[in-house]
């Protein structure tokens, strides 16, 4: 555009010289149009800007890794003037990565019409993808001036969910059954007589003391009570969305971290194990503790984590939890992190009220982490190798 402005100024200069050197009125008319025409173009742009609405819409709120994210920019031009050259400037980034990239498109805008420009993005890793339409720059017919139109909704966010890997871990007996609890499984029965899970017809082999006599009398056939299965909340996951500053591929590491959390959480929920997830909210700088009962809680947890940022310095969750003085008893505490520093291991090992301690460490390269604490089980998880690495993990 600078080149065009220079050319235009040259034309104005020659018009002025022409006006001075030529007496005829024609020279004045040429000078007038050389000066006035850009004003007309600028006025056109102002009119178009006043009569144009721009909006950024995303068809998806949630998307899977690698799948298409459809973005739509709607432009409603109510004026009579079309714009041949409009530049869309869209920026996008993943909050985990925090590197902003741009895409631009030069499009025409029709007069008195509404049009849509559809783009498609995809994210290789999970996270919260923020797509922002900074502005649309419209240019006049001579490309001398440009004006920006700010959209109504400049930013949309899409959650790219991590993959959930079915893991072949083992659920330890110490936390599975026959522990007293007030919470019962809604999907399977057990032996806790304090609550009835279901009533079925009598089948051979059922215990006599489970016959529901009143119902049997009414139904005129024996009906048997099925007792409930108490669910214990005896697993704690200390989740640190953190990796070392020396990490080469932070986004891939964080992606694996999230997938590991999701996979373990799903595994526990599927196996009826209520568990607790503690995580550090970078934005509020506070420790968050959420109890996961079902899948909805998992998604809610993911959403909350995606709304925060990752951090590099140290495992804040571990430190804050250790300092919180929590007295809740857990059979198993799992520290899930990508931050490897032996200095913090003692903090983990000092956590009381936990029968078992495990460290799940996401590592970029296959390396053996030196674990000086014999009471902490360490499992190294390579990037993208969640299922393989958790194959024989005992929760």
């Amino acid at each position, binding site marked *: 555009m600078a080149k065009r402005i220079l050319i235009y100024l040259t034309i104005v200069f020659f018009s002025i010289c*022409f*006006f*001075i*050197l*030529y*007496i*005829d*009125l*024609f*020279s*004045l*008319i*040429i000078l*007038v*149009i050389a000066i*006035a*025409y850009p004003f*007309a*173009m600028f006025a*056109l742009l102002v009119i178009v800007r006043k009569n144009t609405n721009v909006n950024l819409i995303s068809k998806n709120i949630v998307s899977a890794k690698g799948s*298409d994210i459809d973005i739509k920019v709607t432009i409603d031009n109510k004026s009579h003037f*079309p*714009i*041949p*050259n409009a530049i869309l400037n869209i920026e*996008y*980034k*993943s909050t985990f*990565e925090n*590197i*902003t*990239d*741009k*895409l*631009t*498109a*030069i*499009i*025409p*805008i*029709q*007069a008195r*019409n*509404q*049009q*849509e*420009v*559809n*783009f*498609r*993005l*995809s*994210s*290789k*890793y999970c996270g919260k*993808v923020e797509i922002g339409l900074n502005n649309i720059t419209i240019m006049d*017919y*001579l*490309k001398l001036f440009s004006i920006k139109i700010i959209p109504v909704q400049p930013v949309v966010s899409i959650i790219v969910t991590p993959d959930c890997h079915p893991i072949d871990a083992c659920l330890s007996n110490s936390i599975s059954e026959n522990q007293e609890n007030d919470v019962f499984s809604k999907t399977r029965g057990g032996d806790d007589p304090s609550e009835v899970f279901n009533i079925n017809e009598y089948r051979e082999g059922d215990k006599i003391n489970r016959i529901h006599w009143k119902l049997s009398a009414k139904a005129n056939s024996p009906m048997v009570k099925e007792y409930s299965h108490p669910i214990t909340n005896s697993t704690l996951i200390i989740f640190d969305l953190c990796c070392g500053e020396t990490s080469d591929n932070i*986004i891939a590491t964080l992606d694996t971290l999230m997938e590991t959390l999701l996979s373990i959480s799903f595994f526990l929920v599927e196996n009826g194990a209520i568990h607790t997830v503690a995580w550090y909210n970078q934005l509020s700088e506070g420790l968050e503790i959420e109890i996961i009962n079902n899948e909805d809680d998992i998604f809610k947890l993911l959403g909350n984590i995606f709304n925060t940022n990752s951090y590099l310095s140290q495992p804040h969750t571990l430190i804050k939890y250790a300092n919180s003085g929590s007295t809740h008893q857990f059979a198993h505490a799992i520290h899930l992190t990508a931050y490897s520093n032996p200095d913090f291991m003692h903090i983990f090992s000092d956590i009381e009220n936990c029968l078992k301690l495990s460290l799940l460490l996401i590592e970029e390269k296959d390396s053996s982490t030196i674990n000086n604490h014999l009471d902490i089980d360490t499992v190294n998880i390579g990037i993208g190798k969640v299922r393989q690495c958790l194959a024989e993990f005992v929760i």
Partner: protein
Amino acid sequence: MFKRTNTNTNVELPKNSITVKDHISLSVFRKQEFTFKYLSLILTAFLGCFGSIYSFISIFNFRFYEAGLFFYLIIFFMLFVIMFLLPKKFLFALIPTSLVYIALIKKYWDAYINGFQSVFNKIYNTINYSNIEYYKVSPRISISDCTTTFLVFSSFILVMFICYFVIVKPNFLICFLFTFPLLELGLYNGFAPKYMFGFMLISFWIAMIVMQNSSYTEYASKTNANFLRKNNNFYSKPNIKFRVDGLSTIWAITFSLSILILTNVVINIISYQRPQSINNIRSNVKTAVEEFSIDDIQGSIGRIKSSITKDPASNPNSVKLGQYSSLKHKNTTDLVVNVSYNPHETIYLKNYVGSVYTGSSWDVIPREKYNEYSSVFDKIELYKYYPQDFLLYNNIEFTNPFYTNSIKITPSYKYHNANFVPYYSLNKDDEFIYIDDTTIALDNKQEYDFKIKNIKGPYGTVDNFEDYYKINSFNKYSIESSYSDFVYDNYMSLPKGNNMDELYQHYSYIFESNNPPYIVLSEIQDALARDAKYSLSPGKTPRNRDFVNYFLLENNEGYCTHFASAGAILARMAGIPTRYVTGYIVPKSEFNPANKTQDSSYKINVKDKYAHAWVEVYLDGIGWLPYEFTPGYSDGDAPEEETKETKKAKETSATKKTVEKTTPAAKDSRPTASESKQTSTSKADDAGVAPKKNAFENSIGYTIMLVLLIIMLTVIFIIFKRKIMLSRTYKGFKSDNNNLNIINLYSYITQILAFTGIENNNMQYLDFANYVESNSMFLKKDEMKIIVNYVLKAGLSEHISSQEEVDFMLSVARRVVYDVYNQQSLSKKLQMKYGFNFL
């Protein structure tokens, strides 16, 4: 802005982990039925062809058959517009057209050459204000005929190029290069075209720029995609759907024509007058440009710079000598002078005094020199007896009462910072501001008057002696005596060097004669008249030469500046203090009955040619006496001097007068046998006077005819286009390749459905079929699904479609198009038929 490279890389490694897919689509809510594309192309081409040709013709006012040329232009325009608007395969028609053109131009070659010569002669005469024929054209040849022939054949080429570079490959630069010279040829020489045609041409250029900006031609590539992708940048390609170049161009043309017409109307309403200051700058710049010389670039640039910025009468401290090769008078009025009575002599109006001669300029005396004589000037100030008044009180006999005249001076705009003061002015009401010992100034610069002591009375008003003469004889003598020392100290200086020595040697007979000053001055006057010739074009003084030395000893030609400078220097050599003065003269010949007003005073327009330079000589007991050294001026009148401009102006006015007397030239639409007679008698009309207003051009009939012609052309084009497109469409259904027929038929049916508002919008085929079945009443149940099935098989598999499938689709297409057509309103029907060419 975004440079397109030749590499066709699709995606570079992204900075972050999010990738942008190649998919980008543009869709609109309401498909616009009329895109203005063809209208804008036709209109732009029309503006370019007719604007350029008629601009050229209107500048030089050729004699030719207007209607004939107009007719041929229309034919050529229609031919090329149709040829270039049709699909590219029709471009082959250029070959027979060119062959016909070549054959015809061969046949009419002689007439073409004669026409060229006539046109050239006309241009030459117009530019040079002469009647000389550059090419000798036989008088038996009809000028109108051959000029028309030449214009017709030349217009063919021009129309072809303009239409091609507007319609086929829009290119502003080539169009500009083709059309601008036609306008510039006249503009450069000071001739403008008829405004309407000039406006058309300017609008054409603007439309081309807009079209080029909107066509995305710089992003063209071989693929059919709508966008070109370079990394994460998507650029619209020339074949993008929903282009807006048509309407944009129409708006651009509308804006430009509106501004042009509005400007013209406003100029006429306010009776715009070109400011005199601009004219002055123009005159100065033209002179400076004409004096430009490679040998003296610094001086040339300085002259150009000062011509733009310099106030010509701002009392500079230095007047440069010998910078211009000639003096050009424009016959402008620089001063208006009202004189109460005829003084019977030339009145000198003084403006600038130069005291120090440097060899190339006259400068003022430095302030330090005045400071050295501060006691003298303090005394002058104390007694209010200034050197500027010495002449008045020493040279005039004061009687009581005495007669005075009055002069009122009204300078033009360019002298708004200067005063011009006549000699023997009386300081009435103490309003004079005495500038050192040189000039007098007044507070009022716009209009001021003086009382002058009448030398040759008795006439004029009567004034009293006591009102003016306020100094006694002793002080008067004392002041004059002290001032005389200052004069001899400062007004005798000469530059050192051989130049002055040579001059002294050459004129030593004058200096060594021991004659009284009057005789010496007279001898100098005679010597100058004898040794040098008065000329307004003496040439520039070479850079390293002394001005006076070069004038007197080598060049021997000059005007008042030369003579005054030479006289002043020679007088100094003779021991007489002198100084160089510039201003204006009002010759006694101007005091004639033509300038006399009702109250017996004289109102004289002092022209630029009366700008003059003379000398003041200091004589003890008298004061600064004006002395004339320029030959021809000493009798008190200014000689008549004819410059190049006045000569030209005379010739032009004589020519114009001749033209007014003869019959106007016949720009005849009917070639008759008596054309040759008419040519010989009205030859004087070729003198290049353009009629100011053409009644035909202004008539409403012309406008209506033009509009009707455009409508007729549009209708013909639409009809012709429909026939071609229908034939092409139906051929697409009946080719030998049934698969292709099926695909074309499907495309045809979807276009009709889109016309009814059922659009695909990136749906899958089967989804679209379901959508059509649920929303369209023109297709029977499952019909669309069957059609889609056929299309998928034809397009995506190795299945060869059968004739039954093609016939089925053809019958569906026919039925749908007629059903849709019958249900539409009249305007929609016309659109279907003539806009979209569905049936």
